[in-house]
């Protein structure tokens, strides 16, 4: 099975994150940039499917030059190769334009199965799988907590608010996964060394046949007008329980009219 895993480089969600003051885009320059955590689960799932059914796993990343670090990190887990869509004109692209670029890249890769995380930890927008499915005319099975592959039939169990759903589709399809699906492996030393030699193909917008005015700020379908940082919360009261902490807690709730 030919599997492509979408991997996004994001600023570490465990540290402070900001938007740039000049153009309101995500500040990647000053951030510690890492693989979107949810994508690691997609890589793990791809490797498990390859181990069980054979095939090839390709990482697909759209991002600036420095995304190479995340691509090598992803490859060190075990995928075979990577494709990096990189072009200065992509800076400032909206989700709609991003889906156009990724769909064009996927169009060249002939994937049976596209895997990705359910959301990125920076934008948390969750739209990419369905945007790609819409463009490529393939099925999207989103939010998988379990994925079964039986020949060309994919079966996914997905959490809903009322319980869960079982959903099926035939390949080619795109499946997004939650962090409940597996436990991603740590790269081995051997894997890290091997990753340095694995092929990483760079593709520009010209290679993909996408015009520069369809992406970036020029091609954006939405715009950030301004942003501000929320002031930190302050003025809270902290008491140490000396036998009446529970009562004091309820007294606070009462003054706030919750009880």
């Amino acid at each position, binding site marked *: 099975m030919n599997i492509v895993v979408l991997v996004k480089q994001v600023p570490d969600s465990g540290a402070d994150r900001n*938007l740039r003051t000049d153009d309101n885009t995500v500040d990647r320059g000053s951030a510690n940039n890492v693989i979107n955590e949810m994508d690691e689960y997609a890589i793990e799932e791809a490797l498990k499917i390859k181990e069980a059914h054979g095939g090839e796993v390709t990482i697909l990343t759209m991002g600036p030059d420095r995304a190479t670090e995340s691509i090598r990190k992803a490859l060190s887990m075990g995928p075979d190769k990577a494709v990096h869509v990189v072009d200065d004109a992509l800076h400032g692209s909206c989700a709609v334009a991003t889906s156009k670029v990724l769909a064009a890249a996927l169009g060249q890769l002939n994937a049976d199965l596209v895997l990705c995380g359910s959301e990125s930890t920076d*934008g948390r927008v969750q739209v990419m799988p369905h945007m790609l499915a819409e463009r490529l005319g393939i099925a999207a099975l989103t939010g998988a907590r379990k994925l079964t592959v039986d020949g060309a039939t994919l079966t996914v169990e997905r959490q809903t608010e009322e319980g869960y759903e079982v959903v099926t589709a035939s390949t080619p399809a795109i499946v997004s996964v939650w962090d409940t699906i597996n436990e991603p492996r740590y790269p081995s030393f051997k894997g890290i060394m091997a990753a340095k030699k694995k092929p990483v193909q760079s593709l520009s917008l010209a290679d993909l046949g996408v015009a520069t005015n369809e992406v970036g700020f020029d091609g954006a379908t939405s715009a950030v007008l301004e942003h501000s940082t929320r002031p930190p919360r302050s003025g809270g009261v902290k008491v*140490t329980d000396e036998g009446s902490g529970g009562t004091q807690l309820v007294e606070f709730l009462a003054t706030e009219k919750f009880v």
Partner: protein
Amino acid sequence: MSEVLVVVEATAEFGVKKVTLEMLTLARELGAPSAVVLGGTGAAEALAGKLGEYGAEKIYAAEGEEIDGYLVAPKATVVADLVKRVQPAAVLLASSQEGKEIAARLAVKLDNGILTDVVALAADGTATQVAFAGSTIVKSKVTRGLPLVTVRPNSVNPTPAAATPAVEQLTVAVTDSDKLAKVVDRVAEQKGSRPELTEAGVVVSGGRGVGNADNFKLVEELADLLGGAVGASRAAVDSGFYPHQFQVGQTGKTVSPQLYIALGISGAIQHRAGMQTSKTIVAVNKDGEAPIFELADFGVVGDLFKIVPQAAEEIRKRK
């Protein structure tokens, strides 16, 4: 006045979800609200009363197996056709997984911008969003097409404004390519009478400090006394104390209730990402240096197994 389409979210158990009432309230500021019901046969009929109560002037319904037997693609096709026909001033959907997914497909079908997790929307289409776990506030606008936005639950105070909507049944003209992802089973899991986590006005969450699954009864008891939902930190979920669907945080649900009570939760960024826009935050933790206290309007340093039962008893006394 132009129509504003509100794509209805409802559950079989509770009917119209609160976020739908919030969207109808918001839509009245922008134009004439029209509710769009996408579901099984008879869905619109069952929901019409409530939708009218909150100002829906019209209800469009697309119902049947073709709609609810598949993941969102058929729904997006129906809404896209409706948008082309009625040329609404805006399209509002819930910022839930399904709402975002329908919106994603609409954006591509209509070559239209999309804004998610919107907490306010001005008449000129300027949307307010919170980013990076609530630490950044963003003002943004769709610059191609109409405002296509998903609204975050607990953003707007829903207010009634009675209307008597007529129901128009839409022709469902979905194609084979809309039916690629088929739902073969829906399994309801027990969740009792508690409100849905993202919509609840009060959320009581437990973390690693709760110690084990059995002790979560304490969290549930306090939640029930306050009419709230139960949440859990990732540490508690990973330790198997509570099911994953109740996880609050960066890799779980984002909640923004009136009152959030964190029990035995240290307040790692992972958790704060899902709850720090809550209006009032209360924390109980034995470690006085825990970062959760930086967020708390009221914090108690101490043993939650002493404090929570005492609080529960005090609430019962006051009832």
